[in-house]
């Protein structure tokens, strides 16, 4: 890593809709989104095209700015928990965990062991379903008529059934509590989960056969949207996108939050940092998640699921602040809380991995084809709920 890692910024000189001097065709200013089949929600890209090549791209968001942070300042600490579900609405359980972790740091709460295991089981299932859905959406963006997405959602429904019988909701689980989890595993849940985990390798193989060596997919993704190591670090990119660029940084390994140090798993790293790497890293991470899941399902002890000292009502942490972060499926998800000693946080801040990963979007897209833009965006994996909050 060189010392002079100045941020890279490529800004084209010629303004839009005026003929460039070379007569090479006028630049066409197109806005992709907010209603667009492949912007993953209400995201907009103001794209300037030269032919079909992108010369400028401005991400515009805020179309889903739901004022989560402001609302949280008026809510109790517990009252914000269901709102975190709605941040990255594909993986609500990891959001729950990140928030619970931050509050636990703020108030110094210990989590019982069984709850930690449950957290890890649900988090890895979430990671699995997020990555599967992402690959589905990515191939959808490549024009694959939804078949991989359907297969991913087929597995997702099974995971959601598990979530539903554990937490009572399919998506908005609102499950974690400060110092543990809300309810214990229902009878038979573990067996069901084990049975499900046993079917996953087959699904992964099917998924890989369907796509991983597909020539069209390789042609569409290899060498597209290359993100260099240095730039990725400087731009604060996290999660699979960062690791696809070859940076070994996984908060599960670095912070060893929860009880991740007890599990044997590896962090797959990419070489090229292109879209194919981002795609493959996710496939490989799904395998690693499966490993963790199997270990956790095997080792989970009996015991309480919540710290008996925690109160549901009247929770008022001492003044102070805390920043807690986890490795969410999309990257580092952090919560920064400032308490002034009252029942409501004074400042509640979500460090959104999706939004930070978007920082590099323009740099990745410039010079590529329009068709690549949606693929690159898809490989960055954003969820507008978390980008805009």
């Amino acid at each position, binding site marked *: 890593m060189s010392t002079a890692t100045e941020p890279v910024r490529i800004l084209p000189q010629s303004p839009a809709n005026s003929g460039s001097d070379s007569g090479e065709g006028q630049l066409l200013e197109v806005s992709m989104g907010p209603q667009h089949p492949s912007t993953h929600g209400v995201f907009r890209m103001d794209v300037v095209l030269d032919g*079909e090549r992108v010369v400028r791209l401005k991400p515009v968001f805020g179309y889903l700015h739901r004022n989560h942070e402001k609302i949280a300042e008026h809510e109790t600490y517990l009252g914000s928990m269901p709102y975190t579900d709605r941040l990255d609405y594909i993986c609500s359980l990891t959001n729950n965990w990140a928030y619970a972790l931050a509050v636990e740091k703020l108030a110094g709460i210990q989590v019982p062991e069984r709850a930690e295991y449950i957290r890890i089981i649900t988090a890895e299932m979430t990671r699995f379903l997020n990555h599967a859905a992402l690959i589905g959406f990515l191939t959808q963006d490549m024009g694959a008529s939804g078949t991989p997405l359907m297969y991913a959602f087929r597995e997702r429904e099974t995971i959601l059934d598990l979530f539903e019988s554990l937490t009572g909701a399919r998506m908005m689980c609102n499950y974690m509590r400060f110092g543990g989890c809300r309810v214990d595993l229902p009878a038979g849940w573990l067996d069901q989960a084990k049975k499900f985990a046993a079917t996953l390798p087959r699904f992964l193989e099917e998924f890989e056969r369907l796509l991983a*060596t597909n020539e*069209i*997919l390789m042609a569409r993704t*290899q060498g597209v949207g290359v993100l260099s190591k240095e730039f990725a670090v400087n731009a604060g990119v996290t999660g699979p996108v960062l690791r696809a660029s070859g940076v070994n940084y996984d908060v599960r*390994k670095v912070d060893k939050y929860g009880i991740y140090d007890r599990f044997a798993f590896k962090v797959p790293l990419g070489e090229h940092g292109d879209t194919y790497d981002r795609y493959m890293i996710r496939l490989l991470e799904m395998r690693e998640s499966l490993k963790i899941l199997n270990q956790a399902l095997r080792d989970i002890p009996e015991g309480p699921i919540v710290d008996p000292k925690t109160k549901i009502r009247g929770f008022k942490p001492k003044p102070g602040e805390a920043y807690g972060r986890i490795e969410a499926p999309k990257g580092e998800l952090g919560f920064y809380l400032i308490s002034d000693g009252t029942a409501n946080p004074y400042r509640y801040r979500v460090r959104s991995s999706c939004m930070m990963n978007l920082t590099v979007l323009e740099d990745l897209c410039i010079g590529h084809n329009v*068709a690549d833009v949606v693929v690159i965006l898809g490989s960055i994996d954003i969820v507008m709920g978390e980008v805009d909050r």
Partner: protein
Amino acid sequence: MTMSPIQQADQFFVTSQHRFVSYLPAEFQSLTSAILSVIAIVLVFALLFAITTVLERKGLGRIQNRYGPNRVGPAGFFQPLADGVKSLTKEDLVPRTADQMVHFLAPVLLVTAAFLAYAVLPVGRNMVLVNLNAGILYFFAVGSLVELAVFMAGWSSRNKYSLLGGMRAIAQMISYEVPLVLASVVVIMAAGSLSTVSIVDMQASYTGIWPHWFVFTPWGFAGFILFMIAATAESNRSPFDLPEGESEIIAGYYIEYSGFKFALFFLGEYLGMFATSGLAITLFLGGWAAPFSFLTWIPSYLWFFAKLLLLIVIFIWIRGTLPRLRMDQLMSFAWQFMLPMTLFNLFVAGVWHFMPSGIVRWLVCIALLVAPAILLSRSLKQGKKFAVRHYRFAE
């Protein structure tokens, strides 16, 4: 003239038409016969369109572990009817700044051009609307009108996405038209005729039980594959459906069309697909001829439609599986692989003709085809090594 029952079944439509026409005064006979045939063509292929849309939706559903439409009418087969009624009664929107006249003409031209191609398709023994001397040329000439229609749609909407889609569509269609034509030239070389009827007739004989289809020669097989690839691209089917690439340019050139005009685009596209598939069948798969000599008792038109359905199923299957190519890959594939390959195939067909028959001819021709295919596909990937990668893991 006496016919066996098998022949009667085969020629049922032809003879009944003749019989009907013969009751009319002589000056109306040719006109009436033409009208009857045309009505049959229009109705049959429109019906096939309707059935195909349901089949496609249901087939994709099955590929994706679900049922697909199954509630409207028996097993969902009235779904296209409902869609049709809906489209017919839907408001027709034309953007204010659009070119109204061209906007209206585009779908009409598209459907017209697609229908016109059926004039030379022999759908059964003696069942062709008109046996033109230059039938294949007619087919391609009419097919080239589609490009114009697509451009008219994309341009007249005055929408950025539609224009982008329209330009993409033309670039793609013109790029694949040349391979399409050249791939069929090998058959013409062998058959010595541009007439579709005589091309099928040439294939409708058997050695033992095996048919003389052109697909069963090295150049015919290569030609068939190349033709089908080009046909997929010509009819904008996945993985070459860039002009309407939903994920990139929303709906492509027909983005601003609503109501029945939009349905006409769908119709035109499917008709084009049937027509090129029909031509592929005519050229390579023996047209209406039965695949084995002992199956000739099945009426010829059934064979034609069976082959057509088979090709449609393959189209649907491919659509359910593959992601879309990118524009530049599509273009370089057309010019750097398809075109040279079709030219090579021409050469091979020539060699085949001038060599004495035997196993040597087969080997030489196969070698002459495989070698350039490997070379070209390698040069296509030059600079960009697409490969299955291996990843390192950090502890």
